[in-house]
């Protein structure tokens, strides 16, 4: 797991290595200063030698300045290394997420991906910094002090050694107790982010339904659960420092007792007992530092696990080994296709679909909510893979194509289409970065968007606000259709994407499709019969199964569902325009 994470250090490896190197310098100076100070007192002050005082004093100042310099360098490199590491890690995770299929994203949930990219990376960064700063310094001080203690009096130094495993055992015990709580708390963070994300995104709905209080309560509940968990975990971790302190005092007491006995027996001097206690103190002080690093590691372990989980996730839709780089034509064949979102054959959303669509045909798709219309078209561009059966585009199984090739040729205007912050031009070129201005205008004319765009003061340079809030639903849909057409695809799928467009414009769009892009296969999902009645064939879906297929007239004559929908809609025809 750690190996996997460390890979993201990359260009900051130098900083990560230099930090402990400078730390060694700092420790060396810190060890040297008391030694020099002792010499200054013994040789300079006691023997009243001014020359020695000046010389050693100067050396002391240099040593102090060096220690400061090393300390600053270590701090600087540590900050650079850890921030850089976090940056790379986030980048790697983000790149991975881009490769995810809808299935992978559904599996993690959007909010969990956000938490992993932000909160979790933050904890790992902190732990990484603590490790490169403390992991060398503290052990070095401990080793040095141990050696010195053994040289001074090995019998008493053995006491240190005997206590170390007990201390280690206690620290591990604390870690084991606290770990499961941290494990839980990060998943609660996912929920918290989910609530915030939903609320901010849907703030208009929240406000119009006056649900602010309810939303606040919902947030408070999750926030409270995080508080409870963190408090529990920290109550356990709070044992860390007192346990350390207990051992410091225990050792002082033991050294005092045995030291006194040894001194009285004449096997030890008073100077030696002072230095032993100093060494004991520095060992325990370093252990304390180590325990802090240890706590950081415990907290970050769970984060690390979650980050690696994301990095290790295999995108379930990937390119085949020798992908086909060209889509022959716009024909589509569904051969006994069944599909389940959870890959379970008992929970199928599409059942045994058999359908042959010729290249250039226009197919309308009608069906009630939950009849799996969107699911059906999502399979064509391989947003999901079929669970059973085979799906062919241009005569070849979709799984054999290079993903980019396939998706460039299968252009989808989704039900909930998104525009991004930027000008209309920039949004359109998102479909085809190399499109000329003429091509942009042509596509917009086809999608019946040119007219209203020219009505804006800035025309094609009109700035679209975040989420496209400054254009109407119908306008947004038409820009999205133009964007899809710009890709010049062999198959164009409109997933209920003219729902907010008035019926007249809707029929103009279809007329333009017929005349201007006759060779493109068009699949039009719609709620309104008049959006599909002039299609070559219309597919009636019911609960994931094909209920009927044929022309408008054929279906009116022999399909009950189609007839019902048609009659109910013609009755309310005068309701008319729905542009908003």
């Amino acid at each position: 797991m750690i190996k996997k994470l460390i890979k993201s250090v990359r260009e900051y490896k130098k900083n990560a290595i230099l930090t402990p190197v400078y730390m060694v310098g700092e420790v060396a100076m810190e060890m040297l200063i008391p030694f020099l100070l002792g010499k200054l007192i013994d040789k300079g002050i006691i023997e009243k030698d001014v020359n020695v005082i000046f010389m050693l004093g100067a050396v002391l100042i240099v040593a102090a300045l060096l220690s400061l310099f090393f300390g600053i360098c270590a701090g600087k490199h540590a900050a650079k290394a850890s921030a850089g590491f976090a940056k790379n890690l986030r980048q790697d995770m983000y790149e991975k997420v881009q490769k995810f299929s809808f299935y992978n994203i559904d599996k993690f949930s959007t909010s969990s991906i956000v938490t992993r990219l932000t909160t979790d990376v933050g904890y790992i960064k902190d732990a990484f910094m603590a490790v490169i700063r403390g992991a060398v310094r503290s052990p070095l001080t401990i080793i040095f002090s141990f050696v010195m203690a053994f040289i001074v009096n090995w019998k008493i130094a053995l006491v240190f050694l005997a206590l170390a495993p007990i201390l280690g055992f206690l620290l591990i015990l604390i870690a084991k107790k606290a770990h499961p709580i941290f494990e839980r708390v990060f998943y609660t963070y996912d929920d918290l982010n989910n609530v915030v994300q939903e609320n901010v995104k849907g703030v208009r709905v929240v406000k119009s339904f006056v649900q602010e209080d309810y939303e606040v309560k919902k947030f408070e509940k999750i926030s409270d659960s995080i508080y409870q968990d963190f408090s529990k975990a920290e109550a356990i971790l709070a044992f860390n420092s007192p346990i350390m302190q207990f051992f410091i005092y225990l050792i002082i007491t033991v050294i005092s007792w045995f030291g006194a006995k040894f001194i009285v027996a004449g096997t030890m001097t008073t100077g030696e007992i002072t230095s032993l206690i100093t060494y004991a103190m520095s060992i325990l002080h370093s252990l304390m530092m180590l325990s802090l690093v240890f706590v950081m590691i415990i907290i970050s372990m769970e984060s690390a696990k979650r980050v690696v989980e994301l990095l290790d996730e295999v995108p379930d839709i990937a390119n085949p080994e020798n992908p086909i780089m060209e889509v022959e034509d716009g024909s589509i064949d569904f051969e006994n296709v069944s599909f389940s979102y959870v890959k379970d054959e008992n929970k199928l959303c599409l059942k045994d679909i058999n359908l042959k669509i010729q290249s250039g045909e226009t197919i309308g798709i009608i069906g009630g909510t939950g009849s799996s219309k969107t699911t059906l078209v999502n399979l064509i561009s391989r947003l999901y893979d079929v669970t059973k059966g085979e799906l062919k585009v241009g005569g070849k199984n979709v799984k054999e194509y290079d993903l980019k090739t396939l998706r460039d040729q299968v252009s989808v205007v989704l039900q909930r289409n998104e525009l991004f912050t930027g000008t209309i031009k920039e949004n359109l070129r998102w479909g085809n970065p190399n499109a000329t201005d003429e091509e942009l205008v042509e596509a917009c004319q086809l999608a019946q968007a040119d007219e209203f765009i020219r009505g804006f003061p800035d025309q094609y340079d009109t700035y679209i606000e975040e989420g496209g809030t400054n254009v109407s639903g119908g306008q947004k849909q038409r820009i999205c259709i133009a964007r899809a057409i710009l890709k010049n695809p062999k198959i164009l799928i409109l997933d209920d994407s003219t729902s907010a467009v008035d019926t007249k414009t809707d029929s103009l769009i279809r007329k333009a499709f017929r005349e201007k892009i006759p060779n493109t296969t068009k699949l039009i999902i719609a709620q309104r019969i008049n959006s599909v009645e002039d299609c070559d064939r219309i597919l009636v879906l019911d609960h994931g199964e094909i209920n009927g297929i044929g022309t408008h007239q054929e279906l009116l004559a022999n399909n009950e569902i189609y007839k019902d929908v048609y009659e109910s809609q013609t009755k309310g025809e005068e309701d008319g325009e729905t542009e908003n």
Partner: protein
Amino acid sequence: MAKQKIDKSTLKRLFFDYLLKYYKFKFFFVIILVVISSLVGVASSLFIERLIDDYITPMLGVANPSFIPLLKALCIMACIYLTGVVSNYVYQRMMSRIAQRNIKNYS
């Protein structure tokens, strides 16, 4: 990027409005505990000096020195140390609770 200044009144609000308003008693209790814990630390340093001067040096050169005074002093010190350890634990716990609750209330 423009340097962001820390607004002093915000800091004041953070500290006085939240910390002192909701945790007045706890906050002062924590301060007392921190002081106790620090005093124990100082006492332990002072004890080392007294250990040598008042307990070990007088025993030197005595034929049959009595370790009883030293044992008594060590027992007293052990009690002081324990007080330090306990106050350390209590304030650590209280601090983390206050900090977490503050984060929760702010969010």
